[in-house]
C-alpha cells in the first residue's frame, strides 16, 4: 500500500469505510474517554517543527503488514502469523487475549476487544457478511481487507485467469476521495505500488526498527 500524504486531506473517509467494511464497533464518547476505540485505520495528527514554523501533518495509519513483524514472533499460540500472501493475519477463535502482540507492535496498530462489541439500534443488522464479528477478549487489526482478496481470487479462478492489478482493493482505498491511497502487489514489478519504490518522496514509518513495513508513505517535506 502506498499513502500519498501530499494528496491526503485528512477527511477520514478511510476510517469510516474501514469501520463499516470490517464490522468494527462504532466509537462513542465513553469509548473515547476510556481510550478503547477500535480503529483499524486511523488518522494521526503529527506536529512538526517548532513555533512559529509549526506544521501539522495527518498520517493515516493502517497495520503496516511488516515483512519482519515483531507481533507474530511473540504470540504464544500462533494466533497472529504472516500468511503465505505476506499479510499479517489474525486467528480470532484461537487468540487467548494475552495482548503480548499488541505490546510488541511499535506502531500500536493492534486492538483489543475489552468488552463485547455493540452496535446501536439497527446498525447490528448491517454487518458485512464477509467479515466475522470478533468476540470479547481477542486481539484484532487491519487485515488489508483480506476477505476481498479471497473473493478476487475466487472470481479470477472462476474466469480461469491469474489475479490482475486492481482485482482487489481494500475499502479505505476505495473510499479515498483524494485518491491518496494506492494498492497493489509489491512482488509484481509492473504494479503501481512497485513503481513508487524509487520515488524520492518515499519514506517508511520507523524504518530504523527494521520491521520492513509494506505500507509506504509519500511526502514532499
Amino acid at each position, binding site marked *: 500500500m502506498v499513502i500519498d500524504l501530499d494528496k491526503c486531506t485528512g477527511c477520514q473517509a478511510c476510517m469510516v469505510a474501514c469501520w463499516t467494511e470490517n464490522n468494527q464497533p462504532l466509537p462513542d464518547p465513553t469509548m473515547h474517554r476510556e481510550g*478503547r476505540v477500535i480503529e483499524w485505520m486511523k488518522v494521526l495528527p503529527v506536529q512538526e517543527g517548532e513555533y512559529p514554523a509549526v506544521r501539522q501533518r495527518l498520517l493515516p495509519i493502517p497495520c503496516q503488514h511488516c515483512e519482519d513483524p515483531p507481533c507474530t514472533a511473540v504470540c*504464544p499460540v500462533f494466533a497472529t502469523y504472516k500468511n503465505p500472501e505476506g499479510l499479517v493475519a489474525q486467528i480470532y477463535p484461537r487468540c*487467548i487475549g494475552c495482548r503480548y502482540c499488541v505490546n510488541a507492535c511499535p*506502531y500500536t496498530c493492534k486492538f483489543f476487544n*475489552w*468488552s463485547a462489541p455493540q452496535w446501536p439500534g439497527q446498525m447490528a443488522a448491517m454487518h458485512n457478511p464477509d467479515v466475522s464479528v470478533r468476540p470479547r477478549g481477542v486481539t484484532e487489526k487491519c487485515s488489508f481487507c483480506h476477505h476481498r482478496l479471497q473473493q478476487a481470487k475466487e472470481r479470477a479462478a472462476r474466469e480461469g485467469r491469474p489475479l490482475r492489478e486492481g482485482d482487489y482493493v481494500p475499502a479505505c482505498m476505495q473510499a479515498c476521495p483524494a485518491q491518496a491511497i494506492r494498492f497493489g502487489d509489491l512482488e509484481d514489478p509492473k504494479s503501481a505500488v512497485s513503481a513508487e519504490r524509487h520515488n524520492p518522496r518515499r519514506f517508511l514509518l520507523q524504518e530504523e526498527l527494521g520491521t520492513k513495513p509494506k505500507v509506504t508513505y509519500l511526502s514532499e517535506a
Partner: protein
Amino acid sequence: MSQPSRLESDLITPITRFSPGFFAVIGCLLVVIAVAAYAWLHQLVFGLGMTGLNRPVFWGIYITNFVFFIGISHAGTLISAILRLCRAEWRRPITRMAEAITVLVLFIGAGNILMDLGRPDRALNVLLHPNFRSPLLWDVTSITTYLTASTLYLYLPLIPDLALLRDRVPKRRWFYRLLALGWTGTPRQQHWLEVAISIMAVLVIPIAITVHTVVSWVFAMTVQPMWHSTIFGPYFVVGAIFSGIAALIIAMAVIRKAYRLEAYLKPIHFNNLAVLLLVMACCWFYFTFAEYLTTFYGNEPDEMQVFWSKITGPYAPYFWTMVACCFVVPVPILALRKGRSIPGTVIASVLVLIGMWLERFLIVVPSLINPRLPYRGGIYHPTWVEGAITAGAFAMFLLFYCIFAKLFPVIAIWEIREGQERGIPETVERLKTYLPTEGPAGAAQPATERWGVWR
C-alpha cells in the same frame, strides 16, 4: 515409641492446636478472597473492560503482580539451595519456610496471568498450538519446570518429618503415612535422601535463575522503549532475590510470634538475612543506576519520553518512592548493627516489598503509556476489580501459607536435630581442615584436607 523431645513438642504442638486467633485470620482471608472471587466473576462476565486497561496501556497491575510474585518465589529455593550448598549452618531453621514460599507463591504468580487473559477459557491453547518463538511460552516452560523442581525440593526434606508426624499425630496418620513413603530412617534411606537433596539443590539454582530471566525477556524481547534492554535478565533476577529475602524475613517474624518459636528463630538469623538483604539492595541500586544512566546518556527520543515520565513526569512520585523504599531508607537501617534487630529488619523488608512492587509497576506501565508514535498519551487508573483481585492474590498466598503451616512443621525438625547432633562436631572438624595442622613439621596431610567433608 519414645517420649517426644522438647524439639518435637515445640514444633509439632502448633500444628495440632487450633487457637481462635488462627480461625480469625483464616476468616479474614476468606472474606478478602470472596470479594476477589466476586470481582473475577464480574470480569469474566463483562470482560477486561472492567479493568482500567486501555489502548495503549494493555498491561497493568495483573502483569505487575505476576512479575512481583514470581520474584518473591526466589525467596525459597534459591536462598535455601545456596545456603545448603555453602553448608551455612544457620540455614537450618529457615530453609523450609523459604521453600514453602517458593512453591506456594508460584501458583499466585501464574494465577495472575490467568486473570490478565482476555480469554482464560482458551489458556490451554498454549499447549495445543505452542509457538516456541514466543517468550511467553518460554515462561510457561520455565515456570512449570521451576514449580516441579521446587516442589520436589520442598518435599524431599519433608519426608523424615512426615514420618515423625505419622508416629506422633494420630489424628491425621493416614495423610502423613501416605506422604512419608515408608520412611524409617535407616542409614540407607538417609544416604539416598541426602544424595537426592544435594542433586536438587544444585539443579534448582540454574532453574530459578532462568525463570526470572525469562520473565524479564517477555519485556526485553520487544523493541519497546525501556523494555528492550540487555541487562533486564540479571536485573530481574537481582530484584527477585531481593524481594524474596524480604518476604522470607517477614514470614519468619510472623511465624516466630504466632508459633512462639523465639528459641529457634533467633536474632542472629534475622541479622544474617539482613546482611544478605543489604547486599542485594546494593546490587539492585547498581543495576537500576546502570539501566537509567545508559538510557539517559543514549538520549534516544522514544526512550527519553519514558525516562522523563518516570523521573519528573506523572510517574515520578512512584519512582522516588521506589528509590526510597528499595535503597535510601533500608540501607542505613541494614548497615547498622543496631538496625539489624528483628523490628529493624522487618521494617526494612516491608519497605523493600513495597518498593519492589512499584519497581515492577514502573517497568510495565510507563513504557506502554508512551508509545513510539505520537498518539494522545494514555492514562491508567486501576479499577476496584483489579484492586480486589490483587488483594485476593495476597490473601490467597497467606491462606496457602497458613494451611501449609498447619499441616507441616515450618521448621525442619530433623535438620535441627542433625545440626545439634552432627553439625556442631562436623563444623569444628571442617574448620580444622581450613587451617594448617598442628604437629611436627613435614607430617603427612590427611586426605580429607583436599576435599573437606563435602556432603
